[in-house]
């Protein structure tokens, strides 16, 4: 990956994902109601809102993880670089290689640290030989800010790491397939404050190369790591804008009451 060229991009970022009139239903439950949002490249976008408001649901629409839920139905349009990801011709597997995901609970494979990271490149044929693969693994682990901690025990099981290390390993694993977008669903909710700080720092670094979307229930976290914030409430996207503006000068009264702690 050629991240140097990405770094010196102009501040006005291009749109990476644009969602238009997205509705999601779980059977009869209307979980996401007519959401329109533009997610920019090289930006951390935070989704906040009270629990059950549909943040995860919407996030999972962006890489079609919802396809695995039988009763889930999505309508509307989600464009990635101008292409509708729900088009019939799109293979969700190909999409997920482009749009990586990190989950709430660290979920490394019960395999070695090396194999965890190498798995994605292997199935996508990104490495031509062992040396290539070694390089990808090292680069990804460095990008996951965990290389120094694990470089001496790459063949130890990934499940033997601490929670924070596991989550950074999962980030490294997601990064290894060279995605363009990284989705993170409450990546710090299972971590202690120190591990959280490390992951947050990492997210900030990742912004240089990816478009990052993070779901969080912590408003402080959203304020710390994101440039854009979307506030969801009962399936509606209530407000979307620059993080600074949302937290200091929200337009919608529901946003204001949420960030001041009156609904939650």
């Amino acid at each position, binding site marked *: 990956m050629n991240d140097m060229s990405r770094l010196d991009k102009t501040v006005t970022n291009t749109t990476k994902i644009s969602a238009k009139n997205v509705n999601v239903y779980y059977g009869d439950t209307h979980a996401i109601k007519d959401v329109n949002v533009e997610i920019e490249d090289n930006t951390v976008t935070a989704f906040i809102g009270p629990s059950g408001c549909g943040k995860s649901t919407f996030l999972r629409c962006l890489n079609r993880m919802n396809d695995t839920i039988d009763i889930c139905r999505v309508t509307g349009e989600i464009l990635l670089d101008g292409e509708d990801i729900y088009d019939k011709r799109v293979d969700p*597997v190909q999409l997920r290689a482009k749009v990586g995901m990190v989950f709430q609970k660290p979920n490394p494979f019960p395999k070695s640290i090396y194999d965890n990271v190498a798995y994605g490149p292997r199935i996508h044929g990104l490495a031509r030989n062992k040396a290539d693969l070694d390089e990808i693994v090292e680069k990804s682990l460095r990008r996951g800010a965990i290389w120094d901690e694990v470089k001496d025990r790459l063949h130890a099981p990934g499940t033997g790491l601490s929670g924070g290390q596991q989550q950074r390993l999962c980030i490294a694993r997601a990064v290894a397939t060279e995605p363009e977008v990284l989705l993170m669903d409450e990546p710090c909710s299972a971590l202690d404050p120190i591990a959280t700080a490390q992951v947050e720092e990492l997210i900030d670094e990742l912004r240089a190369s990816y478009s990052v979307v993070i779901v969080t229930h912590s408003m402080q976290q959203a304020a710390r790591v994101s440039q854009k914030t979307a506030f969801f409430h009962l399936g509606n996207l209530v407000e979307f804008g620059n993080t600074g503006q949302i937290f200091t000068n929200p337009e919608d009264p529901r946003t204001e009451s949420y960030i001041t702690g009156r609904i939650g």
Partner: protein
Amino acid sequence: MTDISQSPTPMGGAAGQTKGGSLLTQNARTRKRNAAEMRFRGYGIAAIVVGLIMLLVLVTTIVSRGTGAFQQTFITLDVELLESKLDKKGNRDLDDIKKVTTFGYAPLIKGAMESTVDALGIETGLKSKELAGLLSKDAAAQLRAYVIENPDQIGQTVEFRFLAQSRVDGYLKGRVSRDSIENDKNISAGQLDLVDALVAAGVIEKTFNLDFIIGADASDQRPEAAGIGVSMMGSLFMMLVVLALALPIGVAASIYLEEFAPKNWLTDIIEVNISNLAAVPSIVFGILGLAVFINYMHLPMSAPLVGGLVLTLMTLPTIIISTRAALKAVPPSIRDAALGVGASKMQAVFHHVLPLAAPGILTGTIIGLAQALGETAPLLLIGMVGFIASNAPETIADGLLAPNSAMPAQIYEWAKRADPAFYERAWGGIIILLVFLVTMNTVAVILRRRFERRW
């Protein structure tokens, strides 16, 4: 126990006393609760003791009755292979030698018995026919087989170890006594006297009998020659069929149902029916096998292939149920992780879920196989019981298609026969069967322990 009725009574006063009373003395309710707990533990221990006693009784009975089958009484004799009886023309032509039936060997055995008794100087009023009567009816056949193998030995004197007939064997094992043979045509008190003398002389001795483990079943008159080995081969071939069919079909069905199939009424019905199938009595599968595999498809009667097919039907639900449980036990986060890095559903299942479920699948398979190995009822209906095979199969096709029995069916067959010598063999067969089953279950337990949840 009504806890509500005993509301705490406020205690107003005594210094140092909390309102609930002192912790150092047990109040009535605590005593009652502790007593109930003690009683419950008592019941539990009693239940375990009863279980252990039953197990102990079972094991001691089986061992005490069955170990006899592993030992057999042999008579060692020097037999002169007379040319005049075996090869009158003297040209060692194998075709001519084969024309001599076992009947023609009887004089040699009689002669050998007589000379042995004479050489030892034992006084006996028995006729030569009665002397030879101590030997198994198998002896002549054994002699004939040897001569056909080694025609050059004709004219020589060769030492043989013959099986003693089952009454002599029973006498040495304590099953037969002088009282018990009063009405027995097969043996007389005089013969037992001779047996005592020959035992003292070391001609008759009881030793370990490998042929019981590797040999074939024998006809009603020769219990001493019967072995379980051939039916063991029958069981082995059936297990191969079961393994080759039930494991792939069962695992494929489970993976499809668990990971790929949409959850709708159709899969619900399938699911319910698989559970029902697991509860169907095995004899039903037997009659199904008779109707479908033998009467309709015209596969041979008594063939391990058919037995294997029937047992496959029986084992499939067990394997499917345990495989699905093993797949369910793999946390969904592993599937999410794989899908999240762009693995396809199938890659996620085969690269990640299946390896994690493998120990559980194997455990279920082994337990299914163990059940199938011990199953008798369906085999009765497809003719795998009775005196069937006297030779071990030589090829795989033979093993699958030639009529054979199976271990539990063989045991049933022996237990059914009149001669008490067979009864002892039935117990011996049970020991062997149990060794197999316990080994398989132990492997299953070890597998389960070894690979228990590593995530």
